[in-house]
């Protein structure tokens, strides 16, 4: 049956049909739905791991154990999984193994726009790059075949516009694959002597894969009707934009196997096409390859290194006439994302901003604490960096910074890579105060369970990390829990912990208001007779409160009745039902 599927769901389906039986992943936009969709199949194993390194190693172990396996992550997650990646290239696999990585050109939901294709080249691991949902499904099957035939893990590289675009997809049937585990120290123990012996295998594999690339249907030439005197080499979503602009009028070499890239096909194409343009988002991977093999192409001098492309990008670069547009004179105010009404993080950020505390931040919904009016953050780098960064900051600043600096990190991010930073704080004794914003879920990526929630990916009861015990056991003696809806308590505890001459952890605990089990209370209302229009509540930055006709008003479609605004108001103007 044909149906509309997002690329990630189609990829999950393809992995399933290929006989993949184990997936371990860490969520990250735009990759999360691959694993969520795979978890819906009943006859396979699927899990959220604490981080991408653990996920990749788990998938590797499953491959070794004889089952086709995969791990899925966003581009920056691959940095975390890079350690096992480079050596898995040497060991190869037993049953097939696929690494799904999703890039985010344009940074819709990311802290950088690194190009994952570099990893394929650097680790000498083949990479397939689908351009729509049907290809995502088909490529998953081919990826497992390549993995087993050439004895290598295989990348499938998605990007936001392939991962999150729906297109018509036809499903197939699942095939089961089972390999036997046979002890093979020379292949699987990467001590120097064995690794030295494996490296030539890797180089020979790349040579064979290049031969494969010349004949593989993953790479195809679509000859144009001859209107233009040039040809285009492209891949992924850029292919769709090229076709949108030129239709069948221009010859296109569409590459589905991005590493290793073919040589003969490119040379033949260039010879027939005359002038050749390479159109690829982000870095010049295909372009560099073309130039290395002596094919003169036009690439990044015409097409940007930055952000996403579109049909307009392509049309403009070729000097085609722009479409007529309508424009307005009035400036439309920006609408940045923000913390939800009732978000437990807001109370903690309000207190930190009020006390002018320096706050090293981390990756999650709470990165939005950096936005006006709270402006509460000083730094955001990568997963876990708030904790280790705070340690370094305090080692540099010592008594100048220790009593007025904290870090904030979510429960899931703390499990991912914050705990190692905390161990460093305890071990190397910096007088640091770590605030764990425990909202009992992985929030920003759309509510995934994690080791602190007590549930697994299917929502079944699972092992649960006790954050207080964990922090104490690594050597933090002062561990306290606060409710971020209680602003006075938060302020008191923060001041006390900052004043102490030892490392400490404050767990700010209240579940995300979007969780189904968190029942909203009745919206509050503002009593206009009591409201003096002092605007103190506007400094709280709650999207449910706005200011009209000299008074605060509450949007009852947004307010969830948390009542924190009421505790801020000196005139008791916020009223809940029954008062």
């Amino acid at each position, binding site marked *: 049956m*044909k*149906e*509309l599927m997002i690329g990630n769901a189609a990829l999950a389906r393809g992995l399933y049909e290929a006989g993949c039986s184990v997936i371990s992943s860490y969520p990250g*936009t*735009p990759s*999360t*739905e691959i694993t969520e969709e795979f978890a819906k199949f009943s006859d396979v194993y699927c899990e959220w791991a604490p981080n991408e390194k653990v996920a990749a190693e788990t998938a590797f172990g499953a491959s070794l154990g004889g089952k086709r396996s995969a791990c899925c992550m966003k581009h920056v997650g691959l940095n975390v999984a890079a350690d096992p990646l480079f050596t898995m290239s040497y060991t190869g696999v037993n049953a097939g193994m696929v690494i799904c990585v999703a890039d985010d050109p344009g940074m*819709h*939901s990311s802290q950088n726009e690194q190009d994952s294709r570099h990893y394929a080249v650097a680790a000498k691991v083949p990479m397939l790059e689908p351009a*729509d949902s049907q290809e995502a499904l088909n490529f998953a099957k081919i990826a497992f075949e390549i993995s087993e035939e050439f004895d290598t893990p295989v990348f499938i590289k998605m990007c*936001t*516009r392939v991962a*999150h*675009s*729906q*297109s*018509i997809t036809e499903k197939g049937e699942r095939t089961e694959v089972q390999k036997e585990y046979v002890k093979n120290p020379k292949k699987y123990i990467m001590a120097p002597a064995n690794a030295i012996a494996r490296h030539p295998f890797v180089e020979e594999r790349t040579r064979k894969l290049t031969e494969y690339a010349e004949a593989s249907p993953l790479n195809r030439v679509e000859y144009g009707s001859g209107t233009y005197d040039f040809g285009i080499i492209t891949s992924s*979503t850029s292919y*769709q*934009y090229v*076709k*949108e602009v030129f239709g069948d009028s221009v010859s296109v070499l569409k590459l589905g196997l991005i590493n290793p890239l073919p040589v003969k096909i490119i040379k033949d194409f260039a010879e027939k096409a005359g002038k050749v343009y390479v159109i690829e988002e982000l870095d010049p991977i295909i372009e560099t390859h073309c130039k290395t093999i002596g094919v003169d192409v036009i690439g990044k001098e015409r097409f940007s290194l930055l952000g996403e492309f*579109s*049909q*307009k990008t392509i049309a403009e670069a070729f000097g085609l006439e*722009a*479409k*007529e*547009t*309508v*424009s*307005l004179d*009035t*400036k*439309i*105010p*920006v*609408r*940045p*994302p*923000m*913390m*939800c009404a009732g978000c437990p993080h807001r109370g903690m950020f309000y207190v930190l901003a009020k006390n002018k505390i320096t706050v090293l931040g981390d990756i999650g*919904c709470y990165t*939005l604490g950096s*936005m*006006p*009016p709270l402006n509460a953050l000083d730094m955001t780098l990568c997963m876990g960096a708030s904790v280790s960064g705070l340690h370094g900051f305090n080692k540099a600043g010592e008594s100048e910074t220790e009593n007025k600096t904290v870090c904030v990190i979510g429960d899931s991010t703390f499990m991912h890579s914050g705990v190692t930073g905390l161990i460093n704080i305890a071990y190397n004794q910096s007088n640091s105060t770590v605030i764990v914003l425990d909202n009992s879920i992985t929030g*920003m*990526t*759309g509510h995934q369970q994690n080791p602190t929630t007590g549930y697994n990916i299917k929502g079944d009861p699972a092992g649960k990390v006790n954050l207080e015990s964990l922090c104490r056991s690594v050597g933090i003696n002062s561990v306290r829990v606060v409710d971020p809806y209680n602003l006075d308590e938060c302020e008191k505890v923060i001041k006390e912990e900052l004043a102490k001459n030892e490392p400490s952890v404050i767990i700010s605990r209240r579940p995300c208001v979007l969780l189904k089990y968190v029942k909203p209370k009745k919206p509050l209302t503002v009593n206009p007779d009591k409201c003096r229009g002092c*605007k103190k509540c*506007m*400094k709280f*930055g709650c*999207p449910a*409160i*706005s*200011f009209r006709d000299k008074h605060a008003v509450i*949007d009852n479609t947004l307010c969830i009745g948390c009542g924190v605004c009421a505790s801020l108001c000196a005139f008791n103007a916020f009223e809940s039902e029954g008062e």
Partner: protein
Amino acid sequence: MSAKNIMIVGVGGQGSLLASKLLGRLLVDEGFDVKVSEVHGMSQRGGSVVTYVRFGDKVYSPIIDEGEADFIVSFEKIEAARYIKDLRKDGTIIVNTQQIDPMPVIIGSEEYPKDILSEVESKGVKVDAIDALTLATQAGSAKACNIVLMGKLAKYLDIPYDKWESAIEKCVKPAFIDINKKAFALGYEN
């Protein structure tokens, strides 16, 4: 048939995902090639969100670019204006008259434009405004704004009413089918 382009815009959390799901389902059932593209993640937290729906004999690009949208369906008043550049010169805007203040307006650093829809109309754009929130509440749930707006859109697309109804049946949970059908009818009639 060359591709038709519909943009659904609004504020993260307003339910644009269900609207695009319904539209996608309907158009696939009608035998079109269809692509739907939206961005998940950070922008869903109360930010400005946009979904592209494209259909026709063959659709390549999943996104709608400047000057290409035949319709912009907006869940909020100024969001319609924000994406006006993407509208074709002879395109149509279907807009919910609901006002949701963005954070810069809430904190007083920017102003909510007063009469933005008149300005849009003065540029020769057809604006079809509807109080979807009131109609959705009338249908039984304020959350059904999305389906009210789909009802409004249905008047412009040459697809039979009963096909929309059967797409609603396939896309929403059984308990909410009646409310959504009612919301759709109210959008279609008003």
